[in-house]
């Protein structure tokens, strides 16, 4: 365990050199968010004027604003940053050879770096995000009770694990293909839509929402937020958490499997 603590430490120091990049990224990220909220405000306003009611799906305007603010928070907590690119580059450049010789597991090594990246990002981005939320505090709804908040946090942990294992598995493609970036972008496109980055999934037609729930994507973002907002409760919540955990295990197994297969093919180019 001690060695991984060192990795964590080094990782934090490393990513601290990018603190300026992190700050810029979080600030620039707020601009499209503001634009998105403006579009929704215009929609609610127009709907109100035309007597179409003041909810979209099951969301009031305040809930819709909260939804997007929560996506920003969960993203800051769980999104992989450049881990997948770095892992792919490690494989391509032959840097993983040293891990085959050392008594350290590459997956957990990368996981420590992922964690340290998140910790640093949070430290930098917390201030701008908090200020932004405080500016919109009258639209920021709180979870219905402490229990929902607790399950939300559990689910966020699963989300982080799921995000990491999926990216790790994707990066394993670097054993077989030269350019993984296209594949990463394709996966990212699906994630962007199906995990609820663009809009809450329950404003979709119900059949489509059900189809999406057969994939791991909703569990990467939408699911924890729906717990926070009290849209997923009771038996549905318990079942959802179990399925989310199952996806985490499945992705972990897949990541291990891909690594083992890849290592057999690995030629240590330039390593």
């Amino acid at each position: 365990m001690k060695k991984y603590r060192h990795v964590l430490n080094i990782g934090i120091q490393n990513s601290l050199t990018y603190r300026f990049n992190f700050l810029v990224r979080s600030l620039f990220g707020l601009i499209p968010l503001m634009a998105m909220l403006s579009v929704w405000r215009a929609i609610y306003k127009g709907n109100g004027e035309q007597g179409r009611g003041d909810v979209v799906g099951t969301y009031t305007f305040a809930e819709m604003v909260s939804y997007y603010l929560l996506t920003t928070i969960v993203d800051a907590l769980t999104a992989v940053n450049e881990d997948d690119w770095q892992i792919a580059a490690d494989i391509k450049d032959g840097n993983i050879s040293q891990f085959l010789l050392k008594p350290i597991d590459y997956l957990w090594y990368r996981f420590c770096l992922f964690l340290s990246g998140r910790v640093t990002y949070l430290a930098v981005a917390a201030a701008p995000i908090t200020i932004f939320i405080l500016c919109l505090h009258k639209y920021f709804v709180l979870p219905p009770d402490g229990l929902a908040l607790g399950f939300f946090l559990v689910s966020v942990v699963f989300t982080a694990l799921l995000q990491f294992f999926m990216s790790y598995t994707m990066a394993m493609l670097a054993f077989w293909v030269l350019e993984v970036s296209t594949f990463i972008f394709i996966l990212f496109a699906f994630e962007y839509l199906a995990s609820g980055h663009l809009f809450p999934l329950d404003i979709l037609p119900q059949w489509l929402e059900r189809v999406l729930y057969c994939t791991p994507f909703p569990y990467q973002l939408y699911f924890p937020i729906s717990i926070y907002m009290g849209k997923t409760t009771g038996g549905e919540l318990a079942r959802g958490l179990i399925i989310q955990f199952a996806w985490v295990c499945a992705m972990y197994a897949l990541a291990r499997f891909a690594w083992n297969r890849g290592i057999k093919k690995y030629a240590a180019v330039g390593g």
Partner: protein
Amino acid sequence: MTMNLKRYLTIYSALWSNSVTRETMFKGNFLLWIFVECLWFGLQLSFIGVLYLHTDNIGTWTKWQVVMLVGASHVIQQIFQAFFLVNCTNLSELVRTGKLDFLLLLPINTRFVVSLRQVDLGGFVNAAFGGAVIAYAAHQLHFIPTIPHIVVFLALCLAGIVIHYSLMFLLATISFWTVRAQGIVWGYYNLFNIARMPDEAFQGLFKAVFTFAIPMLLVSNVPARVLTDKLEDRNTILLLLAMSVACFALSEFGWRASLRRYTSASS
């Protein structure tokens, strides 16, 4: 003058054939990138589709008008990407590694060669998809644009591309001051998201900033308004053109000021 122009055209065609050679080396990758861009374009369109499940208009923009807007924005972005994006993001690498030395020594305008070194051919294919979506949206709107409509539209798209290029190039010149400019350049890329949103959704300070300082809300909204016959105020055309000239002048000023700071690296 004509000699000079001819010389630059010869140089540029050489750069083109270089880029074509480079793309043909990785054909599979070339096609995959087009697929990725199509996927993201489809994503934007489906977002509009979902929004309009729950409303009839955003401001006065109806569904197919917004589709037209997203299409126009895609065309502008992709043409910009084809000519300039890679070159803008590469500038900080050129500065960091000192490779800019070689370009400065060439007996041609350095900004010309820095800005146009590589062509991303996929951008043209993607722009064509955007054009197809525009045509389909026009069909849905039962609007047949006349030749003047199309000419004005294309001219305004060009102005939009100049704005994107000038602002991104200006941000890229920050690399002369700090090595961390790449993050800022990609940050600007985020702002493209605003360009495809209907201008009427915005108000107050946000609208003012993104109209008069960083004219994201003009770049594709004005051309789309022309093509949907939605232009209420002809002055916005003049504003867009003026902004593109101003942005270009500003970027030239920034480029010259930054270049003076260049102190090569490891040479």
